[in-house]
């Protein structure tokens, strides 16, 4: 039973591997401003084209153009920029702290900051977020104290998750940010349930959920799409197509044959494909989908076309499976650079201000981190109470756990 030479199994292969020169020349990237903006209650059947084009607002000259331009105020633009900068500086710092052994693990969102930050801004605070592990920008945009985020990552005595979760698996109830699961995709259909309950309760809040493009292969993606469609749930179903899933490129999720946005078509919901590195495009698409959901128009699927500029996590070395300079040649640029240039272009920002802001953020992050360490790190200093490890398995501790706790002597 030797494989024949004639027919070969199709196993997807990325465009380049380490040692090869990365290029994306044939990527089909529509011009900014080219896509029209349909009415928010447009019939999904009339929206097939949106799944195959790309909504883009920022053009090559750093101008915001076209119908999707959300016309944000300079203040809002500056908030967006600043929050993306905080996210990146925070990420870098935490990754460094992991490298020196202060915590067990870390995952950055470098290159994808626009997705989380612009979406958080476009949604209402009352809207519920069911993210994956790579949307820390949501927390930052919603104003979570960096100290709390750090305390969680350090699993220290200030960790609201009581030391039970890996770093970056945040929970923040006050900010309507769900508990991140280590199991990929599980939140996708849960978000639909939350949204259905919101309708049932007669409330106005909607839900938004995120998975990576690799995770679309999991059953939860399909369940989320199906249940959202059937109950016309007010929910945003986001696929962050950052091209990579650990070492596997998006072809292993089916991305070579069709856009992820076009998955929406078969479920009868709009699928928007957005330049995920274009803050304004992400913001505008999210606003459109949120308004649609709030008006009873049901779910929208959004594919954010972006690029994971860093490694998958601190356990990963991307140089093993893709050219080291692939991130640099990514044709859609860097979301922070692009928004910065736009603000400068419209006369509302400058290189100096940018430098200064970066410095201020770095100082803030350093200060916060110092404070966080005073609550302990994974290997030294204060921790949550050991006895707390037996709590919250159930609302009330059953006898078997009480006995086990006694056995441990805590």
């Amino acid at each position: 039973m030797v494989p024949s030479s004639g027919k070969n199994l199709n196993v997807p292969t990325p465009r380049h591997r380490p040692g090869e020169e990365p290029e994306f020349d044939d990527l089909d990237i529509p011009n900014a401003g080219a896509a029209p903006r349909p009415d928010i209650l447009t019939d999904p059947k009339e929206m097939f084209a949106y799944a195959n084009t790309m909504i883009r607002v920022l053009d090559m000259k750093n101008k915001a153009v076209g119908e999707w331009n959300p016309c944000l105020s300079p203040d809002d633009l500056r908030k967006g920029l600043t929050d993306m900068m905080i996210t990146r500086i925070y990420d870098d710092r935490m990754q460094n702290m992991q490298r020196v052994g202060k915590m067990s693990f870390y995952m950055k969102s470098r290159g994808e900051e626009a997705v989380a930050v612009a979406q958080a801004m476009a949604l209402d605070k009352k809207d519920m977020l069911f993210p994956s592990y790579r949307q820390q920008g949501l927390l930052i945009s919603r104003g979570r104290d960096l100290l709390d985020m750090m305390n969680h990552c350090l699993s220290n005595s200030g960790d609201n998750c009581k030391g039970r979760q890996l770093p970056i698996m945040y929970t923040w109830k006050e900010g309507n940010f769900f508990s991140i699961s280590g199991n990929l995709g599980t939140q996708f259909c849960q978000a639909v349930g939350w949204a259905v309950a919101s309708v049932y309760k007669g409330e106005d809040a909607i839900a938004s959920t995120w998975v990576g493009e690799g995770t679309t292969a999991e059953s939860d993606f399909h369940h989320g799409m199906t249940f959202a469609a059937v109950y016309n749930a007010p929910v945003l179903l986001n696929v962050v197509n950052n091209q990579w899933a650990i070492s596997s490129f998006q072809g292993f999720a089916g991305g070579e044959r069709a856009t992820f946005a076009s998955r929406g078509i078969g479920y009868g919901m709009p699928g928007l494909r957005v330049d995920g590195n274009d803050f304004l495009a992400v913001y505008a698409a999210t606003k459109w989908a949120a308004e649609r959901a709030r008006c009873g128009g049901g779910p929208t699927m959004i594919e954010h076309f972006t690029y994971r500029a860093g490694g998958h996590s601190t356990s990963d070395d991307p140089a093993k499976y893709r050219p080291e300079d692939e991130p640099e040649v990514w044709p859609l640029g860097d979301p922070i650079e692009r928004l910065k240039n736009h603000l400068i272009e419209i006369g509302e920002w400058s290189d100096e201000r940018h430098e200064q802001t970066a410095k201020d953020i770095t100082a803030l992050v350093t200060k916060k981190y110092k404070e966080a360490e005073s609550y302990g790190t994974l290997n030294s200093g204060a921790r949550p109470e050991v006895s707390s490890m037996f709590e919250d398995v159930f609302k009330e501790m059953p006898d078997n756990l009480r006995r086990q706790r006694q056995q441990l002597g805590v």
Partner: protein
Amino acid sequence: MTKMNMVQAINSAQDVMLERDSSVVVFGEDVGYFGGVFNCTEGLQKKYGIQRVFDTPIAEGGIIALAIGMGVNEMRPVTEIQFSDYIYPAFDQIVSEASRLRYRSGGEYWAPITIRTPCGGGIRGGQTHSQSPEGIFTHVSGVKTAMPSNPYDAKGLLISAIEDDDPTIFFEPKRLYNGPFFGDPKAQSQSWDSHVKGDVPEGHYTVPIGKAETVRAGSDLTIVTYGTMVHVSLAAAELSGHDVEVIDLRTLTPLDIDHIASSVCRTGRCVIVHEATKTGGFGAEILSQIQETCFWKLESPIVRVAGWDIPYPHAFEWEYFPGQGRVLDAIKKVMEG
């Protein structure tokens, strides 16, 4: 008090809770207009509307995910998995999500969901309509598991499960829906009418989660069992010629080991009976805890009576089913041993 069979009792529990608590909703495959393939939700959609009692797509994983999301948003979903043989596609959502949410979020989030699911054989359902998978879930931290053996307990336990703020899997031995079953398929079938546990209050009451019940007192030997096997064990006890005590667990986890242990330490002899396959079944845990607690009082080895370690074969249902004969053999062995 009314006479109810188990289907009616389960229906009534949901009815009572839909009435009392507007955060309760009921959903699953065919549970809405149709009222469920076993009629356990019959009439509820008509009474409470399509917003509160509704059908779902055929996707057990999606059903439980939907329930979790609703639970996080302050609702109290009661879901049906049409047969417990079909709970496996929901395994990840139950184990990794519903059961872990409160813990992993430091207590900030939880999902007070109830999963009703018919289990067990004896209805000629073949290997995919007869399984008793409870032993898979009793190993999972963070989810409670219950299996009633009669209408009164079914209603009271189900109300407790719905009111409970933790996820609960509520196994319904489908062979008992219409009457107690003593293990002999050829015998005249009985109804719940003449059974004391067929007397069921119409309104709200609870049977507490985590409490076993002694359904027959005795001093020679203790049978620990649950679900359909309660009745089979009672019948065997009657025939055995020994003074056999029978304990109906009702809740599997958390296990009421104190209740069990105080009986076994008294009788010194024990038989554990369940319909599920033997190896790795919940009987092993019961046996282990008894051994750990009552070792010095044991007068002979504890014996497990269970389904064979094979899928439930359609044509050999009654050879698979651990009937009175196998329970009697075990009693004999333990009394002699």
